[in-house]
């Protein structure tokens, strides 16, 4: 066992200290959104009470304070991602808006009729639909990397898809439905051999894995604050400076301009040219606080503890004869997608809810993956470092009750 003090760490999360239907809350819906530690809640509260003011433009003391906090937050994100420069850190509203920004902007400059964009079959709709919009606008073609039955990318097929028409590869670092950790370093290496840039959708990786963009050498990385214990409404698009320099702004408005006349507008420098309008600046500081919290616990220790949760969870669920697990990758995070016999996922979810266990049921915004698996949905238990093996036992007991009720 690791030295991870989970009992102590749970105390940092006020939400976890409650009961649902008379049962202790078992929060297994972290893949959708993670709970907030006390430090993040306090940070937001303190900002609104003492430092809230518009950033960048106003000539007043309070604004200077807030601007400093916001730009410090950008530096915290840069450090967390091991990026080269804060010019490479664009604040957005979340992963979805990061990918939309990139797809729209990249598409305008680099996508022509017949060009190819490579995605994988396990992508979240947020990393499919923006590229479909680009495809439809510029006449491009989507190429899809298939997966094995275990839920791992077919790397041979991927290599075969890369060619002189490929303009970008956009794949998830970690699958939100299967929990698979994709071999992203290898994906990037192969793409770069073909002179193709890579976007990694890091929404599900950021709470569980190291997202070292220098080590991965990816060209773009997108993630959301709320999945890594930060506030909602804030996200990040990392991009290598050499790429961001070539991309046109996406949304127009305040802050992103240099000078506006009715004839012509010149745009601001990086990273501001991509940050139009009033940014969620308090949330950016909240995100930085969350990243500090995670790094305070130590990513290596989190990863080691979560590996224990994966092993324990896979063993415990596999021990139930009726449970069929989707996603048995060798490298995975504690996300368990499954079905119980022929019981509908929604029935399972409704009963687990009454037992105080919060899971998600449905397609998890990965309908093409559901089609590939030949199912309409799964039950998904997505865990965090504040979850315990005891809670996995509660889930298993709950599933036994489900089996009893519906057989």
């Amino acid at each position: 066992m690791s030295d991870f003090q989970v009992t102590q760490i749970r105390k940092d999360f006020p939400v976890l200290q409650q009961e649902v239907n008379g049962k202790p809350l078992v929060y297994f819906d972290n893949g959708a959104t993670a709970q907030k530690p006390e430090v993040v809640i306090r940070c937001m509260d303190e900002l609104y009470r003492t430092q809230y003011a518009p950033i960048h433009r106003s000539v007043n003391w309070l604004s200077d304070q807030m601007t400093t906090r916001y730009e410090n937050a950008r530096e915290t994100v840069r450090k967390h991602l091991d990026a080269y420069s804060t010019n490479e850190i664009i604040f957005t509203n979340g992963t979805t808006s990061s990918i939309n920004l990139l797809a729209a902007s990249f598409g305008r400059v680099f996508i022509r009729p017949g060009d190819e964009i490579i995605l994988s079959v396990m992508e979240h709709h947020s990393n499919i639909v923006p590229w479909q919009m680009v495809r439809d606008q510029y006449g491009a073609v989507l190429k899809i990397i298939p997966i094995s039955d275990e839920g791992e990318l077919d790397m041979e097929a991927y290599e075969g898809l890369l060619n002189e028409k490929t303009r970008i590869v956009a794949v998830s670092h970690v699958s939100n439905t299967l929990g698979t950790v994709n071999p992203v370093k290898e994906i990037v290496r192969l793409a770069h051999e073909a002179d193709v840039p890579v976007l990694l959708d890091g929404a599900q990786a950021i709470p569980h894995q190291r997202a070292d963009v220098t080590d991965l050498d990816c060209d773009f990385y997108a993630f959301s604050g709320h999945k890594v214990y930060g506030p909602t409404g804030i996200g990040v698009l990392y991009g290598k400076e050499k790429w961001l320099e070539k991309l046109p702004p996406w949304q127009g408005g305040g802050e992103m301009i240099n000078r506006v006349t009715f004839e012509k507008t010149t745009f601001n420098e990086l990273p501001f040219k991509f940050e139009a309008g009033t940014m969620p600046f308090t949330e950016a500081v909240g995100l930085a606080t969350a990243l500090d919290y995670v790094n305070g616990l130590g990513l290596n220790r989190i990863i080691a503890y979560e590996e224990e949760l994966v092993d324990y969870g896979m063993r415990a669920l596999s021990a139930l004869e009726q449970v069929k697990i989707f996603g048995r990758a060798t490298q995975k995070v504690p996300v368990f997608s499954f079905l119980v016999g022929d019981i509908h996922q929604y029935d399972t979810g409704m009963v687990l809810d009454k037992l105080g266990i919060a899971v998600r049921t449905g397609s998890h915004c990965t309908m093409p993956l559901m089609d590939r698996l030949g199912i309409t949905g799964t039950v998904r238990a997505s865990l965090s470092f504040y979850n315990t093996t005891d809670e996995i036992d509660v889930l298993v007991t709950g599933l036994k009750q489900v089996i009893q009720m519906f057989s």
Partner: protein
Amino acid sequence: MIKTIDEIQNEVIEEFALLTEWMDKYNYLIELGRSIPLIDSKLKNEDHLIRGCQSRVWLEARFEDDKIFFTGDSDAIITKGIAALLIRVMSGHTPEEILNTELFFISEIGLKENLSPTRSNGMTAMLRQMKYYALAYQAKNKPNHAD
């Protein structure tokens, strides 16, 4: 004597009053699902599929002797029970009765959370579809006084 919608609602409330635990309520819904007036399997198609549900729910209505009769099904068992309950309350009444009904039994039997629009189990969508059917048959049945 045919019962009114409100009489059936009160009947349902009385039945559920005996069930204090959620387990018992769910088990009763599962049982009710077994007695649902089943939709003809040939009609289980896109036309009768109700949008806005996590599980698939089919609903069909026919008009007979000025009354509407519903049949339905779902691939999730608790949802099927909820559909059965709604059909039991609404089926066999005139379009006017169906349109003018306020369903008070849902909150009374402790299923209100299941009717919340944020819960995508389709109860709200089912109810809306029933009222659409009623509206359609009412329009079809009534002579047009507009001109």
